[in-house]
């Protein structure tokens, strides 16, 4: 989230799309309803009428996978009616930047496409630069090559007729949403966007978010109270795990993972440190070398020296251009290229797409270690239905893990709050925290390397490793400390002192910090994640900022990019819900995004400090599938064409190549129904935890498929009938839930049915059903390789007999 949970209450419009907030993030609705109490309009755009829709003012059903046409039409509406916030767009976004001659867009493809590699040469999309190397600008926004004009041209094609025809949303409903949402272009109004996996889990996932952000930038809704682009992230600490590098392509604090192209620390720093000659651009990533060295120093301790690149040389390097994301990992497993591994708190045999392939992939391993609370479809894959355990060679080690309530530690919520939680009870039986498991396993591996040496022992034996797992020590080190006495700006810090904030981190080995973004959470004042103080100033109280409750990254800032909430002179655009204000020569309110004086003053800086040029990116040349989002159908689509171009699917989408990786053809008559999948309140993700919690299983006991009365009639189904759902990849049994909450769509003059299923039921809880994900494909977005869980093609028939469900 750019903002935080409480801040939702400050919105004039709560726009929920790609999310079932009430069901999957129940607490969000505490704040959504408070916004509603204060007069906000709540809009929910989603294929299904859910518990979120029930509490919204307006629910608009949309065919899954057509968010870009819906939002493209919105951008066109905002531009056509000139509803954008003019000063904000001109001053704070890259609307005025001139795009270089290499950029072009024709019939669904941007310039620079290589069909063999299914990839673009992104250099073609660069800005036109002046003699100082700064993007050229036209502050009149009239130049046909300026971002504003190119944006206009791009979305001019997204007419109401075309959008309605492909999304299945009536023109009337489109206009209703466009009008309500766009009214927040008034400087003192704001709309918050709440999204989740309904936007991300598509082959155009990243571009869905990009386009909504473009709309928010046009309306001046980023950086303001009740605004922002807010990814609702779940209780499984999704925010914390991305911050601290659970993904393969980044290290803690969003530092890129080293590739074989960058053999030395110097090479890494050069490639990853953007430079600008614009004195008004803070270009915050210019500080990356300090963050990288502090991280390395944290990992290698005394062994890390300037001479050995602080241990950079010992880090594994990935091959450039090779994708190591989970679906490709599974692919390598399936092809026998991986011998063994560790899986902690993750149930890929259930929750990853194309479960049959995942399960067969696990069969190929020699060994597998699983850290888990319960037996799951992953820990027990070797005894799954239809498999003889004797035929599986894999040796599985199941390490019993304790639950969150049985250990101390921190959790990062969606609003970037870093909060301590205390152990409530002692762990049950011999269960241990996963931190303990990692620390102890590593120590024993290190002992072996010390005794037996090996080919390349340095990365292991040189690691600065704790003697025992201690969450407090870990939190301290995430913040970081000084490794020697240092004087910075007349103040001396002693060796071992905690670093006050990331501004003090150094690239010479004098500081350690396991995550620069969290630097400040455990400074000289102690562990701020423990704070529960409700004190705030009257200005802060107006927007519920609560700066003394827990701690938020970065530097306790609660609203990111908050300097865009004030005009260039530091005056809040919305005085009644100001986030910051420049008063008597200083900023008041939230921690400003950089302490410089207002932008209009000589020392002032642009507000979007994480961008090299300091501006919000209407035009985003950094995304691999295009600088502007463009509509492409899901990889499996019920239509054979769409009205925007001949390019049916995302030309860059990613899918492993194997005998199992197959897709139904467009408008495949064998699979005429769109299937979307989702979570629900009563079960948590893949359901391993909650299926083992009796009162929750009582409330949601078995796998179902929600479908419309119209589809049920077509298929001769009654409510409660057992059915078989079938895709090109597998079959799943479910109970038909026939409901008015799903509705057929009118698309290109034809009726298209959409059905929905949860993915939380698995065979280790007998009679409840088995993985819905057996139906899904492992096709993914090209930017982050998130799989397309939200749309595939299936057929449905009444089941003659069932084996997966107890009737």
């Amino acid at each position, binding site marked *: 989230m750019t903002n935080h949970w409480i801040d939702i209450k400050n919105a004039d419009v709560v726009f929920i799309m790609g999310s079932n907030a*009430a*069901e999957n993030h*129940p*607490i969000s*609705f*505490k704040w959504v*309803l408070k916004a509603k109490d204060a007069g906000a309009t709540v809009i929910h755009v989603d294929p299904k*009428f859910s*518990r*979120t*829709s*029930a*509490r919204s003012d307006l*629910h608009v059903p949309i065919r899954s996978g057509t968010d870009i046409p819906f939002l493209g039409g919105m951008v066109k509406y905002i531009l056509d009616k000139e509803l954008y916030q003019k000063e904000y767009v001109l001053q704070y976004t890259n609307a005025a930047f001139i795009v270089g001659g290499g950029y072009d867009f024709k019939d669904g493809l941007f310039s620079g496409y290589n069909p063999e590699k299914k990839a673009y040469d992104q250099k073609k999309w660069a800005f036109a630069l002046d003699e100082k190397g700064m993007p050229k600008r036209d502050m009149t926004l009239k130049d046909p090559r300026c971002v504003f004009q190119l944006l206009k041209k791009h979305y001019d094609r997204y007419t109401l007729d075309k959008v309605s025809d492909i999304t299945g949303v009536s023109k009337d409903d489109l206009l209703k949403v466009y009008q309500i949402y766009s009214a927040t272009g008034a400087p003192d109004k704001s709309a918050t966007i709440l999204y989740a996996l309904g936007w991300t889990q598509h082959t155009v996932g990243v571009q869905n978010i990009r386009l909504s952000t473009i709309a928010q930038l046009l309306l001046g809704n980023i950086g303001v109270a009740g605004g922002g682009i807010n990814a609702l992230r779940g209780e499984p600490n999704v925010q914390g795990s991305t911050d601290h590098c659970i993904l393969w392509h980044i290290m803690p604090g969003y530092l890129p993972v080293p590739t074989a192209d960058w053999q030395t620390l110097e090479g890494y720093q050069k490639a990853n440190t953007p430079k600008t000659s614009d004195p008004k651009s803070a270009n915050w990533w210019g500080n990356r070398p300090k963050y990288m060295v502090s991280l390395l120093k944290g990992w290698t301790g005394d062994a890390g020296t300037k001479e050995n690149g602080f241990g950079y040389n010992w880090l594994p390097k990935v091959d450039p251009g090779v994708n190591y994301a989970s679906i490709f990992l599974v692919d390598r497993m399936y092809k026998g290229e991986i011998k063994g591994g560790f899986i902690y708190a993750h149930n890929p045999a259930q929750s990853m797409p194309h479960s049959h392939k995942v399960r067969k992939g696990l069969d190929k391993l020699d060994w597998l270690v699983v850290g888990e609370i319960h037996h799951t479809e992953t820990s027990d894959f070797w005894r799954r239905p239809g498999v003889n355990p004797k035929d599986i060679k894999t040796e599985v080690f199941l390490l019993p893990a304790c639950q969150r309530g049985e250990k101390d530690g921190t959790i990062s919520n969606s609003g970037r709050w870093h909060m301590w939680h205390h152990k409530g009870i002692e762990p049950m039986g011999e269960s241990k925290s996963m931190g303990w498991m990692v620390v102890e396993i590593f120590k024993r591996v290190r002992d072996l390397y010390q005794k037996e040496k090996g080919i390349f022992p340095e990365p292991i034996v040189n690691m600065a490793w704790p003697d025992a797992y201690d969450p407090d020590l870990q939190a301290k080190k995430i913040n970081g400390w000084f490794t020697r006495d240092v004087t910075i700006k007349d103040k001396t810090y002693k060796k071992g002192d905690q670093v006050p904030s990331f501004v003090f981190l150094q690239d010479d080995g004098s500081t350690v910090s396991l995550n620069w973004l969290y630097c400040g959470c455990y400074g000289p004042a102690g562990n701020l994640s423990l704070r529960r103080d409700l004190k705030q100033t009257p200005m802060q109280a107006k927007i519920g900022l609560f700066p003394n409750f827990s701690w938020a990254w970065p530097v306790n800032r609660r609203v990111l990019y908050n300097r865009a909430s004030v005009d260039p002179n530091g005056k809040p655009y919305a005085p009644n819900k100001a986030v910051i204000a420049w008063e008597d020569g200083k900023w008041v309110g939230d921690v400003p995004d950089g302490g410089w004086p207002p932008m209009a003053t000589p020392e002032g800086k642009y507000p979007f400090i994480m961008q090299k040029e300091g501006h919000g990116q209407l035009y985003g040349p950094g995304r691999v599938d295009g600088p502007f989002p463009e509509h492409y159908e899901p990889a499996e689509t019920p239509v054979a064409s769409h009205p925007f171009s001949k390019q049916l699917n995302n030309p860059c989408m990613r899918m492993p190549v194997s005998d199992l990786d197959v897709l139904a053809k467009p408008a495949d008559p064998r699979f005429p129904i769109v299937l979307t999948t989702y979570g629900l*309140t*009563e079960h948590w993700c893949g359901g391993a935890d909650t299926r083992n919690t*009796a*009162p*929750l*299983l*009582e*409330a*949601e*006991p*078995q*796998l*179902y498929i929600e479908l419309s009365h119209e589809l049920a009639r077509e298929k001769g189904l009654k*409510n*409660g*009938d057992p059915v078989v759902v079938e895709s090109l990849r597998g079959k799943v049994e479910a*109970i*038909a*839930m*026939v*409901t*008015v*909450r799903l509705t057929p769509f009118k698309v290109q003059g034809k009726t298209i049915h959409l059905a929905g299923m949860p993915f939380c039921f698995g065979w280790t809880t007998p009679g409840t059903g088995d993985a819905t994900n057996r139906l899904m494909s492992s096709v993914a977005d090209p930017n982050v390789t998130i799989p397309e869980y939200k749309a595939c093609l299936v057929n449905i028939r009444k089941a003659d007999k069932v084996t997966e*469900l*107890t*009737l």
Partner: protein
Amino acid sequence: MPMTFFIDTTRCTACRGCQVACKEWQGFGANETRQRGTHQNPPDLNPLNYKLVRFAEYKEKGRVVWYFLPDQCRHCEAPPCKEAADSYVEGAIIRDNATGAVIFTEKTKQLTPKQMKDVITNCPYNIPRLNKVSGMLVKCDMCNDRIKHNMLPMCVKTCCTGAMNFGERSKMLDLANQRLVELKKKCPNAQLQDPEDVNVIYLLTDDPKKYYQTVNG
């Protein structure tokens, strides 16, 4: 002064936190349930569920409406169940004068099957259930043990949206009336259910029968 629940169904997201928290506090096990084509599960109130969120869906003029009703004992001012039981077994059903909680006691075991049926049918809201294992009539006890220790009833404690409210009757009536006035602006059918007679007051926005057939007595 009796204590009262105010249940604002316009704030309910049917997360069923109340349904689950209730049985967790009571220490009840789970029923073995089946998916029957609805989210409402278990299908009805039962000895292991004193609180149940009921779901009802309609399509009207092309728009879907979905009503949620966190159903429970109303703790009536003059409980008809108690009236019936009193004539058979004194003390089988009592009313705690300090809190207004209507409590089914061990003595309900002494009621004959026919007398039990009388008690059950006398309830206008279809709440009492027979626990065949203990032989008692059972239902929500207002978490009388909790409120005597200044704690909120478990269903109220767990509610994150403000749908479940609990406090002194006069305060809850004020809150209910205030919310009613507010809602009437958008929903002309908004209404409080039997506020004079019960201590669990529901705020609905449509014909009560569309929520559940016995939502009003």
